[in-house]
Each structure stands twice: as C-alpha cells, then as structure tokens.
C-alpha cells in the first residue's frame, strides 16, 4: 500500500517516539523507511541522529538517511519527492499559535503541500500501538473514494475496531431560504430529512465500493463542512482521522476563512492521515 515511508525528523523531544512509530508502520506496511533531516550535516548532528535511531531500537542499516538544507518545510517536501516517499510521517502540535498558523509552520506546510500522502502524528508514543479507531471524512468524489479505500486497507492491517465514515454537509443561507414562516421544529425536521437522505446516499456510495472485512459505520452531520466532521472525530476519540488532500494549493485566504480540510489543519482532531 505504501512502499516507502519517510519520517521528517528534527532533534525535538518527540524525535525518538516518531522513529518508534515509523518503525511500527514500516512493519505494518512492509515498506522501506527513510529519515529526512534538515540541517547542517556534521559529526555532531550525525551523532545526535544516530543516537535517536539507536535509542528507538532501529537498525541503522535498514534505514535510509536523507539530509537537506534550507527552509525546513520546503526542503522536506523536496527531499521526500526526490526519494519517492509515498507516506510522509511527521509530528505536529495539535494547535499552533495564531501567527504561526496564518504564516505557516513546518508541519502545516507539509500537510498542505506534500504531493503524496502524509500521516501527521499529534502525540507520538515511545510504545506505539496499532490504531484502533478510524474516522474518515467523505463526499462522493473519486478522490474521496481513494481515501476511503486507503484508510480501509490501513484499518484492516491494524485490525481496527471501528471504521466510521462521516459525511458532513452544510447549506449556507438555509435560514434565509426557509424564511420567516417556518418554526424551529420545522427547520429541525428539514435538516433531519436532509441528513437521512445524505445517509442513504452515502450507504449507496459505500456499497458501490464493495469493501469487506470490517464493519463500516456511516454518520451524517449537519454544520460547517470540515469542522463538523473533525469535531465528531475529536469527540469520539479517533486514533486516525483520514481526509482527502486539498485539490488546489491552500493559500492565506483559506486560513483566514477556513473551510473543509483547513479546520483539521487548524486544530488536529486526531492523528491526521492525508491521502493524495
């Protein structure tokens, strides 16, 4: 499924845990592993990196080491692309401060711009365990179909206990559309009816995918697209929240008026799996 995993690593306190998580994923996917470090390569930095690898219990000879220089995010993306990484693992804070978020931190830039899939771990563990609760946000597009399939394969490999597909939808201007003549109960029943219709449609969609081996739960929620689904995953203690990578380049305006996937970038609801 993923033939080469890359880990973006710095000398942060979570470095060792990230290596351990990546080693586990390497086994799950039976793939190769590369460590990407951005910074000056000298004996001191090499020693530090080797120490992290050794402490994580990894065999140095089974790991490819990639060094790069320059702006960390740009250099990681470039190195990952050149090395043919198809799943980039990185650690990230659940939430950045406002300035960092608007002007871009390393992890957020990777989430937005890395051309292949990525897995952003918000609290990597020194004793990693399989992910058990998978939540996937979905619409009916072909790109989303790919995300569901990838997440499903991942969940099967992890022997996951829960696989929930969330369809969130929103109708801007709904209150204006129904006008002054409807009561709140009527508005609620209208939303319930729409939720029911969406759920039926999503069931048809999932049926068409013919996925077997794990029970699939479908949930429809009404509210701001991107926020409702990530919030649902957060409230249900998801281990993995899988999303489809942005179709176009996300810019400053997308952060100022967040929509869809930007809500998950703004505050990670769980470990974020971005499928591209």
């Amino acid at each position, binding site marked *: 499924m993923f033939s080469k995993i890359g880990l973006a690593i710095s000398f942060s306190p979570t470095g060792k845990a990230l290596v351990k998580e990546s080693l586990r994923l390497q086994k799950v996917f039976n793939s190769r592993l590369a460590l990407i470090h951005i910074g000056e390569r000298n004996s001191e930095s090499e020693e530090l990196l080797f120490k992290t690898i050794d402490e994580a219990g990894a065999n140095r000879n089974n790991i490819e080491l990639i060094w790069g220089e320059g702006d960390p995010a740009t250099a990681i993306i470039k190195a990952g692309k050149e090395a043919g990484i198809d799943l980039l693992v990185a650690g990230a804070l659940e939430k950045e401060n406002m300035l960092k978020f608007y002007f871009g931190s390393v992890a957020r830039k990777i989430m937005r711009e890395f051309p292949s899939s990525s897995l952003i771990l918000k609290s990597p563990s020194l004793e990693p365990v399989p992910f058990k609760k998978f939540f996937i946000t979905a619409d009916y597009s072909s790109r989303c179909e790919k995300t569901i399939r990838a997440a499903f394969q991942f969940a099967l490999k992890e022997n996951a206990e829960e696989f929930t597909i969330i369809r969130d939808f929103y109708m*801007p201007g709904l209150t204006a559309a129904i006008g002054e003549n409807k009561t*709140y109960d009527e508005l609620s029943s209208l939303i319930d009816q729409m939720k029911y219709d969406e759920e039926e449609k999503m069931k048809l969609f999932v049926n068409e995918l013919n996925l077997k081996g794990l029970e699939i739960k479908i949930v429809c929620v009404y509210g701001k697209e991107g926020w409702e689904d990530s919030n649902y995953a957060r409230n249900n203690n998801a281990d993995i929240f899988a999303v489809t990578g942005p179709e176009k380049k996300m810019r400053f305006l997308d952060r*100022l008026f967040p929509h869809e996937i930007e*809500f998950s970038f703004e505050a990670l609801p769980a470990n974020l799996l971005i499928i591209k």
Partner: protein
Amino acid sequence: MQLTAEHITTFILSISIMLLFAKVLGEIFSKLKQPAIVGEIVAGILLGPTVFGMISPDTFQWLFPQQGVIKIALDSFTTIAVILLLLISGLDVDLSIVLSQGKKAISTSFMGLVVPFILGFAVSYLFPQLMGIGEDGSKFVFALFMGTALSISALPVIAKTLMDLNIFKTRLGFIIIAAAMLNDLFGWLIFSIILGLMGANTHGFTFEQTLFFTITFVLLVLSIGKKIINKMIPLIQTKISFPGGILNFILILGFLGAAFTEFIGIHAIFGAFIVGIAIGDSVHLKENTRQIIHQFVSNIFAPLFFVSIGLRVNFIANFDIVIVLTILVLAFTGKVIGCGFGAYWSGLNKNESLVVGFGMNSRGAMEIILGILALQAGLIHEEVFVGLVIMALFTSISSAPFMSYFLKEKDRTKFRNLLQERFVIFTNENEKEKVIGKLVEVASKELKLEREVILKEVMSREKNLPTGIANYLAIPHAKIKIKEPFVAIAINKRGVNFDAADELPCKLIILLLTPENNNEIQLQLLSEIAAKFRNKEQVEKLLELPNASKLCGELKIMDEKGNS
C-alpha cells in the same frame, strides 16, 4: 421636542396598524406562493399616500404624519429595522463557501458585479434624461449609484428560490449562493463608498480618510474580530441564559459596528452587515440561534420597514413608465448576461449559465433598502425609487419561472429527462443475465458502444453486489465511458431473481449507465429511482401498462406529482 401622551398613543397605534396590515398581506402573498415582502410593500401602498392618503388625507396625516416628533420616532424605528435587516443578511453570508466553490463562484460574481455596474453607469451617465435626471454635476454620482443598484443581489430571495426549485444542495445551487454572497459584500462596500464620496458624513472626515477607515474596519472585523467572536460565542451560549444571551451579544455587536461605520461617514447598515458576516462565520453559532434572530427581525422589524416604504412614496403619482422600463431592461440585461457569461467562462454549459444568470437576477429586499437609503440621501428622486422597487419585485418573482424553464430543458441528471419510449422493452426472460443482455443491446445501439464492453461492466458490478432493491425493482448499473447518463427499462412480468431485500422476483428492471469518474450522478440517479418506486401498489399498476408510451406517460405524471 418631547413626546406627549397623545404622540405616544398615535405612534403606537400607527405601528400596530402597520404590523397588522403587513402581516395579513404578507401571509396572503405567501399563500399565493409569492414573497411576503411583496405583500408588505402592498400594505404600505394601501396605508400610504397612494390609497389611504387619497381617500382620507386628514386621517392619514394624523396617523402617519410626514413631519414632527412622530415622524422622527417612526424614522428611528425604521432605521433600526434596516440595520437589523442587514445584520441578519450578514449572518447568512459565508465567505468560506466562496473559497470552496472557487473559480466558478468568483467569475460569476465578478461578472455579475461588473457588467450591470458598467451598463447602469453608462446608460445613466450618457442618457440621464431616461432616468429623469438633468445634465448637471450630480449625474456622475447618480450614475455611480445606478451602477451599484443594478449590480446588487438579494441572497434571501435567491436562497428561497433555490430551495423551491429543489436545487439548493446541488453544484449549481452552491455556485449561485456563493456568487450572491460575494456580490452582496462588494455591492454594499461600493455603495458605502459612494455615500462617502457624496460627502454624506457629518463627522468631518475626508473621502480618503473614510475609505481608509472603511477598509481597515472590514479587514479587522473579518480577521481578528471574527476569531475573537468565534471564541466568545460558545462561552456565551453555555454560560449565559439561552437564547437571550447570544441574541443580546449579536445585537450589541451589530449596533456597535453600525455606529462605527455611521461615525466614519458611511452608512450604519454597512457596519451591521460586516459584523453579521463575522458572527455568522462562527462554527459555534447554533442553527436555532440564527432561526430565532431571523424570526425576530423578519416578523417585526422587516414588515415595519417595508410598510414604511409605501408610506413615504406615492407609487401612482411617481410612476414613470420610461424609467420603470429602462431600469427593468438594464437590470435583466446586466445581471443575466453578466452572471451568465461569468458562469459560462468558468466552465458551465449554456443552460446552466442561464440558470445561474436568472438565479442571480433577484434583487428583493436588498435593492429596496439600497433605494430607500439613496432616496433619503438625496441621490435619487421618487420616480427612480418607484422604478427600483418595481424592478426588485419583478426580478424576484420572475427568477424562479425562468430558472425552472432552463433547468427542465437539459438537466440530464434527472430520471425524467433520461426517459424515452424507445428505451423501454417488454421481455419474458427467466434469468437476470438475459434481461440485462437485452437492456444492454438497447444501450449499445444508442450509445454506439460495443455490447460486450457494457455487459462486462454491468455484470461485474452485479457479481459484487446484486442490484435488486424491493417492490419488484432492480437497478443493474455501471460506470462506463459516456458523457451523459443513460437509462433503459425492461418490463419482465415473469420476474427474475436479483436478490432483492424483500425476496420478491424483479419485474421492473432499470439499467442505469453513468459516466465513469462521476460517482455523484450515479448516486443521485440511483437514489432518485429507488425513491420513485417505493410504493408497491404503484409499481404493480405500472407493470400492467400495455406499452412504452403509456409507461413513460405514467412515469412522468408520477414525477410531476412527486415534485409538487
């Protein structure tokens, strides 16, 4: 000047009468499937100088005096009303939708602003006599206003029309809504700048200062302000009594925004509108909060405002057919062509673009608000105002029929439009493979694709999961290399096993082929077809029909009943 007991009595009486007439006529028009606002304006015309003032001028003058303290009190009330109307309009605007809809919404909105603006400006500037304006210095600002007036849209009317036509939740619906939101934002911004340009402010700022304050205000409220509001709303909704606390919070912020923009020399409504956008953007704002504030404004303040319009202007004395026709022609041409081309250039087909064009043509309440403010500011005279009101009402009422016409013509994602007699066959097979084979033959001939190619796709889907639904219905389907969906129907009275949920043999077999890489169309048609045949007795009746013509006719009747 002070309000005496007599003044207060008259004031309260006049408000009660305005509310009573507005509600009764608003309800009557709603029952006639017309916007309530039309009824409310008609109520104003009946109560105003046009009718009541003609019949009984003294009583009219006593109840609705045109000067003095009661007039001031009424004007204050309607000013509050218009501020609240713009506040709730702002609540409905969701700029993130514009971003998610991307190029299509931006192109539609941009062209929907620019083309009507240029057309309105050019005609008003070059031929001011058509609008009853002299060749004096004021024609430049007047022309600017006319450009803006023609380029604005009315989100509430548009949203309601989309809902009535059942296209709110479609790709086209989202493009129209997003474009209208962007259109509103820029329309009101331009109008506010025109008011600034006129020197309408009384606080001594220059035009450049007003412009600077306006832009700074917009940027601050929609960035930092929006973030702070988003943090405060959940606190208010949980810690303070609901819904009182949150309603208070929205009104306080709205009025503060309004006061600020009035202070810097642009109208108060703009501040309320921008604050409304910032509040409405919050992910924490509950849908019932929106509903409560909508009810509060739409049932009390909006009717008073719309009735007050009829009280101000004599619609018969100020009716000028040349002005009305000029405004109507400019409004239709500018908006339909502008938005239509914008949508077309962004990749929609001709019919879809026309639907977008007519959808964006509704002006509704926003135009009337714009008109009344311009009238108060001395930008336009009463004949032009009457023309704008008529245009606002006519564009709002005519939008749905035009959209409906173009939607019906070519919407190939609806079962009804895919139905053709020559695609209906009557078979008597005992195996599903054979029925599917016959249906595939029909498809192969029509689509000019190899029979085996289609059959392979349909059968492979069938093997994954049988397509029997229930009530004798089966929908074998596949995604293949075609541009538009295709439907063929087999009536097989003998019944074949498609593993339907109710275990009944399938007699009504509908082959559905859809373009590959378009899951949405397939799902839409699958759910539409499955929903259409939920009634077992109805399916049994269909199975008894003797020929394709009768069957298609009956299916179309069922479709119309289902939509009504």
